[in-house]
């Protein structure tokens, strides 16, 4: 039970990364590698601020800002420097490694004996691991409300249109470069926020913690899509969170089978690869129905809202 609770909590915290990725990969259709840098940048900034006595709340907000700055760097390299977006992301991701070492001063900083969002009077009174679920839920709700509103605004619509049809957006007078930069900033901001939250939940920040984050985030997006199919924009955001939780549960299940944690990245990649192949496999074997049957009953809360 504890393991499951923990998986759900982690699913929500990493789900924020999934939402960030949704903005870049799905709406803008950018293969944005920056997130492997913005995730640890968020963690590093957050942990460093907390160990220097800043309030955890403010430190978490700064994690968002730091991630957003990484996104800004990629956005400017891409739109103004005309560097392909994949390469721009890799450059920022690589640079972020050194920046993180500078911020933290060493490769790993512990949060032992400090105040975090996950350790205050209220959440400590909850059963074990429920702190991450509650904090995760609060952040997920705030993220959803803000993003869902944004995407319904004129600016948000222009942002969606930019990813959908750039030529048409330009002819409608949308400043597509600005939209791309905004998208990358917001996307990486959420990834940084997610990094800050995960670091607080884990109790440390590590300079290598960004490794493979893109796979985790993408898995959340893709599993959400595979399981829930056609949805409105708002529903898709929620599907990403559910996708992230499902992914955590799958990983938990695999580890329970006796696999070593060292194999985790391999397993993550395989899980994502299978999910990505699903649309192709689905046509061959019509397995969509099987999967829907296998997953939906676990998830009555969502089924009820549909």
């Amino acid at each position: 039970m504890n393991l499951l609770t923990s998986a759900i909590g982690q699913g929500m915290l990493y789900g924020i990364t999934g939402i960030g990725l949704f903005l870049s990969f799905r709406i803008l259709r950018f293969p944005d590698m920056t997130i492997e840098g913005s995730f640890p940048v968020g963690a590093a900034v957050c942990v460093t601020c907390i160990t220097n006595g800043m309030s955890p709340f403010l430190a978490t907000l700064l994690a968002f800002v730091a991630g957003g700055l990484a996104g800004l760097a990629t956005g400017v390299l891409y739109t103004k420097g005309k560097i392909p977006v994949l390469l721009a992301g890799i450059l920022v991701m690589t640079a972020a490694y050194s920046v993180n070492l500078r911020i933290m001063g060493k490769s790993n900083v512990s949060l032992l004996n400090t105040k975090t969002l996950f350790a205050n009077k209220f959440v400590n009174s909850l059963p074990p691991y429920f702190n991450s679920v509650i904090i995760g839920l609060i952040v997920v709700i705030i993220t959803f409300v803000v993003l869902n509103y944004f995407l319904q605004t004129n600016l948000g619509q222009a942002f969606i249109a930019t990813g959908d049809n750039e030529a048409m957006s330009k002819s409608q007078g949308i400043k597509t470069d600005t939209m791309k930069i905004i998208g990358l900033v917001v996307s990486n901001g959420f990834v940084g926020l997610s990094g800050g939250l995960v670091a607080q939940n884990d109790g440390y920040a590590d300079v290598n913690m960004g490794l493979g984050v893109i796979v985790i985030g993408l898995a959340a997006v893709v599993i959400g899509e595979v399981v829930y199919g056609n949805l409105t924009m708002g529903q898709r955001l929620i599907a990403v969170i559910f996708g992230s939780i499902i992914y955590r549960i799958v990983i938990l299940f695999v580890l329970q089978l006796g696999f070593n944690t060292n194999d985790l990245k391999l397993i993550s990649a395989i899980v994502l690869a299978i999910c990505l192949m699903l649309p192709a496999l689905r046509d061959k074997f019509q397995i969509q129905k099987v999967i829907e049957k296998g997953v939906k009953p676990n998830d009555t809360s969502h089924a009820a809202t549909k």
Partner: protein
Amino acid sequence: MTQAMLQLNDVTVTVTNGGQSLNILNHINLSVNPGDFITILGTNGAGKSTLFNVISGNLTPTAGQILLDGKDITKFSEEKRARYISRVFQDPKLGTAPRMTVGENMLLAEKRGQRRTLGLRHLRQKKPQLLKELGLFDNGLADRFDTPTGDLSGGQRQALSLMMAISAKPELLLLDEHTAALDPKTSNQLMAFTHQIISERNLTCLMITHHLDDALKYGNRLIVLNDGAIEGDYDTAAKAALSKDDMLQFFDSAIA
């Protein structure tokens, strides 16, 4: 004399290809009066699309000057010109955002060239008015208000693109063979509707077409492009005297 809506002064576009430079637009001088509906004919490679790209800001001319309503817009970006100029492309895929619905696309177009703010788009409140607009052309678009445009037929998409181009009145409307990808019947319907809406709303319009009948039938002026230069410029009277054979002859000699 009234001031020209659009004025091209000595506009030239040069491309270098394998060390040789080629003028794909060669010292074009053109003056378009308010309310003009000009059809443009020309062979492939005559520079028709380049001309539109230069006017819309998609391409910066190598030399020359572009004036819109007396204002020099040569240096304006495409996004900035969108406030005054709207365009319908030949390819139905280019004109609309495929994952967004008909209604959402119309809302995008309503704000053409304006600042996009953090205000809500008010899709629901504006729906009746948008439906009324879409209902002007009877091809089922209004019934598909909440359908992503990627699921529409080519004809519906082109009609929507045209609606979007005129929903916020443009000072200049550019139609780039907007009926070429459609079947003859749909093409004729859309062309008739185009003609109707242009005269009703008194729009200034340039229309590229490969359809000789359309080029002769519609508009008050005809321009023939060849090798990046204006080869023929026929006003209403001269245009009325032209026959399809004259045009065919011209094309034969242009290719030969």
